């Protein structure tokens, strides 16, 4: 392809990527090192009350926002270095928790960032194998099903993926809430009171289950498409060679699907590490928060109407660094597979 033709195809995409991804990214990166704050001035105010022979006057020094000519608050942006990161990560609190010895984990989980990181990592790393495994299992089952049954099975399998994430999460929540249908059913079966939303770990299990249920259809569709391209001669060779069903899966099917498994894993890692909807849908803020939710929380105005833009930026950058670290092994594998052989 001629360079000119190549850029004609790629150009629009590049421009949009720069406009909507690169520039905001750089902006967030810069904002994490700078802080915009209101400029205050100290003024002396003399208050007088009538008196004789002279009025009674007192002088006070007060701090108040500096206003410009048009009466608007004056702000200034100052370089704060890694202060925003320190405010998010709270290294002193971590050190104190470490010094506390055996109480380390409970103290660490009281710091918002570490609490969010723990949940985000758990959420990502537990849902990843489950999504890949369940997606592959459904794809294999559908592929082995009668041709006439495949259409309906595919339709039903795709339904969870079609449901809007927040609505889906809310639906699950309503099923398991105090007087939800499933809670009542479970209580009737077990004869004990069940409070799924009274403690963090049960909410976390529901959140993990929901994400796997929601995303597995995507993995299924990708793997099912991949299964259609498995070389039948190779598969039949394995049959004749004496491979069992499991060995055919291990030595023929999975190696064939490996690029798709890497693709689904990449997409899921990026998606799961930015978990947010579940926190809202399951109202888990009191027990479980994610890094994305933490960023959102920093951006929300506090009681005095201030937003912690620089801390939100720092939190965003840390989230992105986390995603990159998780993606490195998969990207290295992809790079190795496509590296020209010398």
């Amino acid at each position: 392809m001629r360079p000119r033709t190549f850029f004609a195809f790629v150009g629009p995409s590049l421009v949009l990527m720069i406009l909507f991804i690169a520039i905001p990214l750089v902006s967030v990166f810069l904002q994490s090192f700078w802080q915009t704050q209101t400029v205050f001035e100290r003024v002396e105010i003399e208050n007088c009350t009538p008196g004789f022979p002279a009025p009674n006057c007192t002088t006070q020094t007060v701090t108040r926002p500096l206003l410009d000519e048009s009466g608007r608050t004056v702000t200034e942006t100052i370089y704060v270095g890694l202060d925003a990161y320190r405010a998010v990560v709270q290294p002193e609190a971590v050190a104190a928790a470490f010094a506390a010895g055996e109480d380390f984990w409970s103290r660490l989980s009281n710091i918002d960032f570490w609490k969010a990181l723990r949940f985000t990592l758990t959420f990502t790393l537990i849902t990843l194998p489950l999504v890949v495994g369940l997606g592959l299992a459904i794809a294999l089952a559908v592929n082995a099903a009668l041709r006439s049954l495949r259409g309906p099975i595919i339709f039903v399998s795709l339904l969870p993926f079609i449901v809007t994430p927040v609505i889906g999460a809310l639906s699950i929540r309503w099923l398991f809430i105090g007087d939800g249908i499933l809670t009542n059913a479970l209580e009737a079966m077990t004869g004990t009171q069940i409070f799924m939303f009274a403690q963090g770990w049960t909410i976390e299990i529901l959140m993990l289950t929901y994400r796997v249920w929601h995303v597995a259809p995507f993995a299924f569709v990708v793997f099912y498409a991949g299964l259609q391209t498995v070389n039948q001669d190779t598969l039949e060779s394995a049959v004749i060679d004496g491979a069992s069903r499991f060995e055919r899966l291990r030595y023929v099917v999975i190696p064939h699907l490996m690029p798709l498994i890497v693709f689904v894993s990449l997409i899921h890692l990026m998606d799961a590490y930015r978990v947010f909807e579940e926190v809202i849908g399951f109202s888990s803020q009191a027990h479980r928060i994610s890094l994305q939710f933490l960023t959102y929380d920093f951006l929300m105005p506090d009681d005095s109407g201030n937003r912690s833009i620089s801390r939100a930026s720092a939190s965003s950058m840390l989230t992105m660094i986390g995603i990159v670290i998780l993606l490195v092994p998969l990207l290295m594998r992809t790079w190795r597979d496509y590296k020209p052989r010398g």
Partner: protein
Amino acid sequence: MAEVRLEHVTKRWGAFVGVADFDLTIADREFLVLLGPSGCGKTTTMRMIAGLEDATSGSIYIGDRRVNDLDPKDRDVAMVFQSYGLYPNMNVYENIRFPLKVRKVPASEHDERVRRASAMVELDAFLHRKPAELSGGQRQRVALARAIVREPTVFLMDEPLSNLDAKLRVSTRAQIKNLQHELKVTTIYVTHDQIEAMTLADRVVVMNKGVIQQVGTPTEIYDDPANTFVAGFIGSPAMNLMEGKVERGVFVGQNVRVPGVSTKEGPATLGFRAEDASLVMEGAGERPGEIVAPIYTLELLGDATMITVRAGGALVSVKAHKDYRAEIGDMVGIRLAPELCHLFDAESGARLTPARAAGGVRAVAAAR
């Protein structure tokens, strides 16, 4: 080593019959070729022997065992596929070792057996390579080595040379023939290429529309085709087939008149091979040929010149000396010996003249 026996084997998909009443015994150590056009049922027959397809009816025996209900892995057959069927993620060594690994052959034997099999197909230098780094011929040799390494009782080969270029096909064909001779394993080979069939087979089974048309040695099939289908399928060029009728022992058709072919009267098809006819030289004082017609086309083949004329409602080709030259449209006479002609029923296509001892017929031709 084992004999393979198919007793009235039929394969149907609904109303469609893929293979009809296939009944054949393949002798121990025999090289049998299933030959026919696409869709004739030859691959289906092989897949039923392998266990990749279930026979609708009939019995398949390998040795003394009826194998209809056995899984493919329990039939002790090895198969070589047209598109190789290699494992792309494994190197050559691992590809060849795979059957030993999954069949739980003691690991101590693997290396020796893999190296012996790879040496037989001259792959020693490529053991560390992945299939993607090999040529088509090398890949097919890996598939052969993988079949050899198990030391099965039957080799099944499904058009193994079809994906190779013409030159590689010839050398790999020779290698397969030599391997079969060395290993002395019963081999069933599927192809649509009649040259492969003729060069490799101890016996050839010609199939069409799921039905066996003829079973015989390559010479029998070539010299005494059982019907017009076999006559038209085997040989390059195929046998010339002319429509006409027999009147008082003389075959008469458009531009053709051959006396002494049969005593049976009525419509018939007369066949002869291009090399069994000769041109009548003008001015040599010879009687005119059995076919007299203008030249339709003339092709120089290097070792011969192919003359084509229209006779008996078909284009008929005759091999002439490589130096023979004429113009399209020139009248030409073609001499046919009745004993080298084959008469077939005009409707069913079945052979009317009795099959002859091939050696005898050729001897007559040579004496002329």
